[in-house]
């Protein structure tokens, strides 16, 4: 399911931000917003029946018509997944009726020290209001990995018990902060320890794209499985749809030329376009052993994040 970028600006400025190339960070107004007409065009591509609409930004709740958009999508029977930084009051003020489909909220929560007191107060108010409808997202971008505040937030505010785990990946041509290969072992050990620790409170981890199977030993994977971890060792076109209906493979590729949505007959055709465009690079994988890996051949691992592979091939410092 593609991500619909409602805005291209965000009031936060996360060092690892995947969208840095296309999103104006640290501002709450004055940039591009998706128009109702553009949104209608995107919805036509989602296919018949009630589907899932994934709303993103920038910060989507900063869109000047955000309440109207949420209400309209709910009335038309769409399920919604919203990715937010959680620092705006609009998040809790503009909720669809509970009886209308699913409305899942993923709040990306950094360390509390990185927020102003006003921002943290908004996060707390949103979390208290939304409770189990809201899940936390955690991006690992440096080591050592500090995650204890996530458990406290989930237990205190009775949030969803699954934490989305993202690995910060390099965006070629854009100076973001990301995990280097040298940091991976430590980060993965920390994630296993985290999974074991939070499992005592019934909390589990859910991997986002870009992980490799070989980052974890069978023993570590077994531990993660026992702790309810949702595995994902995949990397495929997500399709981020933004200004003027431009479509990128995914945010880490937002420095690459996009395609235009309306030049294609379906989302599947766009995915195939990006698969063709990046196929040779994806075949290489993140590591030298990816090419001959049995798990690559069976499709259970895609060789890690394609952006990391491309960054390495262009002289990036994925292998620090």
């Amino acid at each position, binding site marked *: 399911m593609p991500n619909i970028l409602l805005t291209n600006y965000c009031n936060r400025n996360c060092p690892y931000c995947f969208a840095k190339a296309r999103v104006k960070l640290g501002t709450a107004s004055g940039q591009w917003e998706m128009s109702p007409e553009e949104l209608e065009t995107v919805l036509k591509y989602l296919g018949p029946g009630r589907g899932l609409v994934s709303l993103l930004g920038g910060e989507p709740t900063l869109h000047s018509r955000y309440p109207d958009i949420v209400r309209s999508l709910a009335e038309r029977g769409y399920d919604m997944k919203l990715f937010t930084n959680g620092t705006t009051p609009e998040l809790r003020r503009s909720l669809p009726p509970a009886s209308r489909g699913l409305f899942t909220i993923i709040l990306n929560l950094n360390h509390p020290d990185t927020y102003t007191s006003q921002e943290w107060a908004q996060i707390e108010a949103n979390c208290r209001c939304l409770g189990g409808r809201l899940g936390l997202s955690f991006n690992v971008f440096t080591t050592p990995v500090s995650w204890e505040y996530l458990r406290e937030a989930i237990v205190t505010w009775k949030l969803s018990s699954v934490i989305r785990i993202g690995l910060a990946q390099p965006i070629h041509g854009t100076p973001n902060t990301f995990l280097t290969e040298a940091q991976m072992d430590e980060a993965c050990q920390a994630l296993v320890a985290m999974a074991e620790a939070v499992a005592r409170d019934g909390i589990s981890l859910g991997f986002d794209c870009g992980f490799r*199977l070989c980052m974890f030993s069978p023993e570590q994977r*077994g531990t993660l499985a026992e702790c309810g971890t949702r595995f994902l060792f995949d990397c495929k076109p997500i399709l981020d749809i933004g200004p003027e209906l431009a479509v990128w493979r995914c945010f880490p590729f937002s420095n690459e030329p996009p395609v235009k949505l309306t030049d294609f007959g379906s989302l599947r055709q766009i995915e195939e376009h990006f698969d063709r465009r990046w196929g040779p690079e994806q075949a290489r994988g993140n590591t030298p052993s990816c090419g001959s890996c049995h798990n690559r051949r069976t499709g259970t691992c895609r060789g890690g994040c394609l952006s990391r592979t491309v960054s390495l091939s262009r002289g990036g410092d994925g292998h620090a």
Partner: protein
Amino acid sequence: MLNLVVARTVAGSPVEIMPMETFEQVMTALVETQDSGSPPTQNLVSLREREVTLHADPPEAQPHLAQMTARLQASGLRVAVYVHGGPLAGGVGKNTSVIYNAQALSGTSTRAPVETQDVASLRLFLAMSSADLDTHVETQDFASLLRRVNTMTGLDAVTLGVGWTGWGSGPQPIAPECRPAWAAKVLEIASALTDLGVRTSFACGMPLCLFSRQQLGHLAALKVTWPIAWCTPQFHVEPSGQLRYCARLRGACGVHISDSRPFEQIARLSDRWSPMKAFCGHANGSSCRSLATRACGGGCLSHLLADWQGPAMAPVPPQAGNVTEGK
């Protein structure tokens, strides 16, 4: 997850058919539940990606199969038809997946042998099909099972069942001393299926701790649908319209699809029974982290209740009469 038994063959008895009138009652209850926004809605619309399974044994016995399929799909639900063989022509649309019982196809089932043309008919749907395969350790010759697996190229998925018995109907299906051997063989089957490009999923009711940590780690590297150890309400509707928690909990609910908010009644029964899972004998009870994170459903509830049927500890199973609105 919703299971509708629209046609059922039991040896020596006439085929049971779900009348269209009963199906309409299912649709009414489904729409009412979805509109109510109550917790069962979440179970019905989100579990297993909104899939409804029509059990049609044999499919040609249900004259309204195509109509039923179309109605459900028009409501935005994915439909799978579960068959033990039998011609499917005209019975299902192009967007319907087919799950077939591989025991029946191989002729090892107690059901009537399947004719060659039936198999050919099923193979028309191979690309979108999956199969059920019982791995009950005391009745399976694993070598022949692996040979059969090798014929499953082109399938979308194979569901491995453990063959749990129903409530009060017998001993544990896999004796404790057989579990390590069973787990190793199942891992071998899943590995063989992965090499064939076929995804493995596990039928409900298996405790996670049947596998060692190392084995779980290897399973995570295969084409496997997670979670592998689960037990959730199946919302199982009989041809007569009787609604059950699942196919195995026979006669324990007494809710009819025409009752007021039938799915919510089942969900409440589920809430009442779920604390029993904390006494799961497999994994150190409530201290189990897999139980806490729902990585494991605590094994089969039916089997768990059967364990509790000893005279000293037998619980009174919740009955429909005990379930009242608003509780």
